[in-house]
């Protein structure tokens, strides 16, 4: 049953990603992108990372894509005249060949039987924390435990980064005269 779900959600994610790349309309592309993100969240659920699946839906499919849609509608890029949506034939051919080569590389590298195939161990809800590291659990409590012990410094740096990004956005998007600077 779970195997079928894996194939279904992988297909949904990949097809939505390809549609996002190929559709000429940017708004349709953003909608396909939301589907791709939700498909990835479903794959996270299959990998028993429930907290990350929720974060993926809330942050990526929610906040980030809403921001993208706002900007697409604000700039109204689809109505702009002049620029053709795709590049010339040579660039299209080169991009397609590069994509095919990369896809073949991925498929041939990971589908052979020579790679080690680790077996899935059963996860527990809330195991003991041992000193070598935090074992994989399904509870979000282990997230908090790791964030405030092993990953304390990156956690603080991430908070500072968010502050810096907020100030940066205010500075960049502030309206000023072109002749002034």
């Amino acid at each position, binding site marked *: 049953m*779970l195997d079928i779900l894996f194939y279904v959600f992988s297909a949904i994610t990949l097809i939505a990603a390809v549609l996002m*790349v190929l559709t000429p309309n940017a708004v349709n592309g953003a909608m396909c992108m939301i589907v791709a993100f939700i498909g990835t969240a479903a794959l996270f659920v*299959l990998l028993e990372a429930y907290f990350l699946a929720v974060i993926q839906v809330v942050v990526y499919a929610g906040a980030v894509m809403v921001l993208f849609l706002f900007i697409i509608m604000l700039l109204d*890029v689809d109505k702009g005249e002049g620029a053709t949506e795709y590049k010339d034939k040579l660039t299209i051919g080169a*991009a397609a060949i590069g994509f095919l080569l990369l896809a073949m590389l991925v498929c041939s590298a990971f589908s052979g039987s020579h790679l080690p195939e680790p077996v899935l161990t059963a996860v527990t809800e809330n195991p003991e924390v041992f000193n070598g590291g935090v074992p994989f659990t399904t509870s979000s409590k282990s997230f908090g435990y790791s964030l405030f012990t092993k990953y304390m410094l990156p956690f603080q740096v991430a908070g500072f980064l968010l502050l810096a*990004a907020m100030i940066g956005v205010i500075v960049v998007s502030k309206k000023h005269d072109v002749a002034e600077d």
Partner: protein
Amino acid sequence: MTVGLNAFLIVAGLLFAVGLLGVTLRQNTLVIYMSLELMLNAVNLAFVAFSRYNGTMDGNLFVFFIITVAAAEVALGLAIIVALFRRRQSVMVDQLNALSH
């Protein structure tokens, strides 16, 4: 679940390849930026798969930080694109070629 780690890695690799195709193929800066997000997403999927099959929580924590950085990066990048549009009246990369001549 009998699906192995390599199947997840194939999906993540193909997602990354599709994102690369979008970056090289498209003209619209916003679509290029969405393709970059797709590549980040593919890396996240590989991280979670490794974390689950390895039995440790570190990959999941790393994905948590990647999502944080990506959110900050999207906000800042879109602000830059809006500032660029104000100045040049276009977001198509073939018209933003002031450095190529």
